[in-house]
């Protein structure tokens, strides 16, 4: 069963195509790496999935439905280059999740905050970028929803924070039946996280498949990445 299916998906911004006739099939209940360099179309693809923008052509089915605000009840989404509200504390952020995000589990959120060493009274304004990234991740990962989309969750944060975030994702994925999509171009550090990958290049999917199978056929993800984008 596929969590996401797209056929002939195109999105044009002014004269540039962000996606061009992309064909995507993403299996459910796996951790999926959506890989590719900047400008490959990853963020546009995610924004189409959550209904923030409309495609020019093609079809999208997410969890068997067309993207809409109603479908966002079932999707936890971390936007690209997102920051969190500076005047919110960890506690207020968890309250925000409880108030507005369906499936948000308050206990789980406090549990994650504790694990990531974020004190409830800590304000976003006083956080490092890594701590802020962890807080935003809590908003997504504390939700009991079938689909989680994380757009560049590791961008600009240090190695220790990255490792903590990856550990959290792996732990939670093993506890739940959840499809987790993660975009990144930092393959070296995140390679062990994924069990399925989709490679984007110039708005098209150029390769996708089970990580173990791809490794068996073509070597490490890092070497496949080098080969594809050199």
């Amino acid at each position, binding site marked *: 069963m596929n969590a996401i299916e797209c056929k002939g998906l195109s999105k044009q911004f002014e004269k540039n195509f962000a996606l061009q006739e992309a064909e995507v099939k993403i299996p459910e209940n796996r951790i999926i790496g959506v890989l590719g360099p900047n400008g490959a179309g990853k963020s546009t693809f995610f924004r189409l999935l959550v209904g923030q923008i*409309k495609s020019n052509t093609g079809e999208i089915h997410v969890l068997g439905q067309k993207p809409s605000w109603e479908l*966002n009840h079932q999707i936890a989404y971390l*936007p690209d*280059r997102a*920051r969190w509200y*500076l005047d919110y504390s960890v506690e207020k952020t968890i309250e925000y999740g409880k*108030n507005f995000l369906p499936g948000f589990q308050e206990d789980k959120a406090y549990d994650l905050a504790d694990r990531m060493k974020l004190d409830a009274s800590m304000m976003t304004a006083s956080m490092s970028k890594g701590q802020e990234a962890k807080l935003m991740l809590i908003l997504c990962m504390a939700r009991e929803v079938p689909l989680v989309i994380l757009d560049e969750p590791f961008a600009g944060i240090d190695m220790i924070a990255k490792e903590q975030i990856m550990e959290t994702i792996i732990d939670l994925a093993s506890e739940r039946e959840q499809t987790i999509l993660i975009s990144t171009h930092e393959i070296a550090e995140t390679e062990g996280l994924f069990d399925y990958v989709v490679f984007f290049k110039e708005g098209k999917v150029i390769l996708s498949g089970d990580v173990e199978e791809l490794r068996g056929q073509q070597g490490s993800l890092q070497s496949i990445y080098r080969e594809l984008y050199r």
Partner: protein
Amino acid sequence: MFWNLVKHELKHRSSEKDKNSSHKRYIKYIYLVVFLVIAFVFITKLALAGELDPTQIWNVLYGLPFALIGISRAIIKREQRCNTVGWWLSLPFRRQTLIWAKFLAAMWRSILTYLIIFVLGLVGFFYALLIDPKLQLHDIGNFLLTGANVGLIMIVIGPLVIALGMFIGILALTEYRYLVSLFWIGFWVVWALVISSYAEVIFHFIKHQYAAFPGVSFIAWLPCWIITYILIVFMSVLLERKLV
């Protein structure tokens, strides 16, 4: 849930840039102090010369539409400035619900702004009363009614001005963002034309409008609120279909 959304919108928002720039944090207070000093000098000078018509203090309210348009545009723009626009737009609510929440928050801020100006105007009146021998305490009735009339007019046109400000903010998020500067130019030209041609008529209306109330206000109220509603629906369509 909707009121929680309004409450969320009412929070003060600062961006990373504001956090790192101490002068930006205090700039609005500096503007306020400069404005109060100018008003103080102006009132003192006219009152000592016995030339002060206290209702002129309310002239400051001519700037209120600009304040309202600034408040309402900022309530959209801050999502962009703070890089939180992605969070806002992925909330599982209808686009129209998201816009109504911001609209009500902007309305509340606008009412507060008006009330602050009203109180400051009142302080100005009492100060003038102390130093102007011609001014009497019973003049306060006319003074208050003039100020309250402006408030009434704000209730009539305020929502429309707020919706226009939000519309400019929303337009900047869409593929029609190139129209934003054109819209601004249009707004300034129309406002300048209205003020230069009808300032006296407007001020006369403000001073004596309570006599005509409620008929005149109601006639203006209905179309203003209908256009506001249409603008809000249009904004939600833009957010739904034309985002970049």
